[in-house]
């Protein structure tokens, strides 16, 4: 019994000492530090890893030419495992332990919101890449969203379907997560502007395997077009099954679908489908092509839209630090004054809520590749 207690106490002491050694104070002049928070393991790590890959690529390149004004940038990469609790821990580590000037992340809205509580309280600028509108509606002066939000993308998609493709009777299908519900809201709002309502609305869960029930309902609803708000794996599933079940109406998909390896999963069932996005591999702009080439050479896979906006975000941050140094308030102010920045995604102009993404494109899949057929100004 005695030895048991001693071991217990001994372990406690060791643990305390260990915890101690994790805290470090940085007292010298501030070196340049950028933090990246995203899901690197577990579900959602496709996007999280794309973010990390872009951030590292940009910073390594800048460092190889001497850094910012001669000073090299240190980067810190943290994993949030797509869980808010872990995201908070990661954000606190970046802000308080590592002392970063800016946090990049996350591509997922719940974890971004969790991390935001930390960066907001600590007055650290945060650039996120998720699409839920709530993020910029809370009055946080330190948050930025680099990609266009759902309501903007939804508007462009509906606009294209109704105005360009002349579809009046629309079937709508969305997943049961926040992303899908947000998509539903933005599509309904956009349709209202045309005095339209969907003829049928179907939902599904991300774990579902079989969508034949919903697809058959859509078939018998008389819809002329099908708007689908989904992530890329489920989206590919649905497209595959739609084709098998003989659904022949045009499909208009959300930006969440054209990520990851969607095209290799859907193959020919994506042929002729339209997607709204903010980045396309076929953009002839030399800046975009240079980015794609550099990314592909380094990482051996094509950059995804998430890679593109993370690339934008990192570049914007570096430009700001170059201009005003490491003062976080000044960095924030420079970012807030972004106007008509043309990078590799759409046009970026910051407003007072932190929204930056303005441009959207519609791509059509032709011959298995995305082809941009329409772009907003």
């Amino acid at each position, binding site marked *: 019994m005695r030895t048991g207690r001693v071991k217990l106490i001994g372990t*406690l002491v060791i*643990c305390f000492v260990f915890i101690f050694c994790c805290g470090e104070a940085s007292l010298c002049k501030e070196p340049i530090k950028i933090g990246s928070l995203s899901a690197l393991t577990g579900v959602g790590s496709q996007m999280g890893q794309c973010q990390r890959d872009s951030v590292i690529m940009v910073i390594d390149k800048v460092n190889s030419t001497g850094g910012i004004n001669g000073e090299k940038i240190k980067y810190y990469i943290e994993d949030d495992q797509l869980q808010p609790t872990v995201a908070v821990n990661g954000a606190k580590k970046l802000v*308080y332990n590592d002392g970063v000037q800016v946090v990049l992340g996350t591509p997922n809205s719940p974890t971004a919101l969790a991390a935001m509580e930390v960066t907001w309280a600590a007055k650290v600028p945060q650039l996120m890449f998720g699409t839920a509108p*709530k993020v910029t509606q809370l009055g946080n002066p330190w948050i930025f969203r680099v990609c266009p939000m759902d309501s903007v993308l939804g508007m462009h998609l509906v606009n294209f379907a109704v105005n360009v493709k002349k579809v009046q009777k629309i079937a709508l299908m969305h997943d049961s997560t926040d992303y899908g519900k947000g998509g539903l809201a933005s599509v309904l709002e956009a349709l209202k502007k045309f005095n339209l309502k969907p003829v049928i609305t179907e939902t599904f869960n991300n774990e579902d395997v079989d969508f034949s029930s919903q697809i058959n309902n859509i078939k018998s609803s008389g819809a002329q077009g099908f708007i689908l708000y989904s992530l890329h794996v489920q989206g590919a599933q649905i497209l595959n099954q739609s084709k098998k079940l003989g659904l022949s109406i045009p499909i208009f998909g959300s930006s969440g679908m054209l990520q990851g390896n969607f095209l290799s999963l859907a193959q020919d069932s994506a042929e002729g489908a339209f997607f709204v996005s903010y980045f396309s591999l076929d953009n002839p702009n030399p800046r975009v092509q240079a980015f794609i080439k550099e990314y592909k050479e380094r990482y051996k896979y094509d950059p995804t839209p998430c890679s593109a906006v993370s690339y934008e975000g990192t570049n914007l941050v570096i430009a700001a630090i170059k201009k005003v140094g490491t003062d976080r308030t000044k960095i924030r102010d420079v970012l807030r004054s972004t106007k008509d920045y043309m990078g590799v995604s759409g046009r970026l102009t910051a407003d007072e809520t932190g929204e930056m993404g303005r441009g959207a494109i519609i791509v059509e899949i032709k011959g298995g590749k995305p082809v941009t057929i329409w772009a907003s100004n």
Partner: protein
Amino acid sequence: MNFQLLKKAFLVIIGFFLILLPYLWVNVYTLHIYTLIGIYIIISIGLNITFGHTGQISLGHAAFYGIGAYTSALLTVRLGFPFPIAFVCAGLVSLIFGFGVGSATLKLEGPYLAMATIGFGEIVRMVLVQWDKLSGGPAGITKIPDPSFFGFVLHSAQSKYYLVLTVAFLGFICYRNLMTSNYGKQFSAVKENPLAAQAMGVDTTRTKVVAFGLSTLYAGFAGSLYAHLNNYIAPDAFPFSESITLVLIVVLGGMGNILGPILGSIVLIEVKESLRMLKDYNMLIYGLILMVLMVFAPKGFAAINLSFLGQRLTRKTSKVLRS
């Protein structure tokens, strides 16, 4: 050397250390981890009562933690309740659910009880995700106010740490007193030999339900603290893996061991944070560690047979000295 005196002195030193912690050279991140450990200690004390002492496994305890968190968050954000009342309500609402689930699952054991509790945990999480009018949906509830008592707001990391430390300490004292009392011995009796216990006049049914209820009460309080600590909650914060973490803490600390929840929480949370260093291999190694730990320390850390090694070492040394 009087062992009792030594033990008391040691406890006093630890006590000083804990109280002075925020003023020693730790930063906000480390303090946050400590505070989180405190919250885990509270829930795992509860889980130890029902699982470690009474033998009723619960693999869905994160749900009660979540129910407490949401209750407290909704009461303060939507209805403007003051924190102390929201805190108490969080515990009570969790308790009510706990009595419900505890009574319904009385007759189950082993894998069936495990599955029922998992099922309950998943249902709660799914309802929280879907019923967005109530819970704010997948994006959760933001801008949860800091804990405050009669106008005195606890905003800094230090003050939150002290709040959690106090609650954890009080919770521990109540727990220890309960378990060492005569009434408390009933819990272990139900686990060791339910039939004998019944023969001795212990109402096993009531004991099980009381144990479960107590565990959910603790979980509810911890949930409230969590919500106001982070100022944000979402259904994703209470997944099945969190329930696993809680059970793991109880097992590693030693099931039914009074100090178990404290030891287990410190070690496990520490290990999880340190694994961050492994980047992509983080979770892979964590899975491996789970399997290894179960093989080498199934009874928890307190029971690791180090004395065995110590004996062999002394024997070898005396052999060498003799020759």
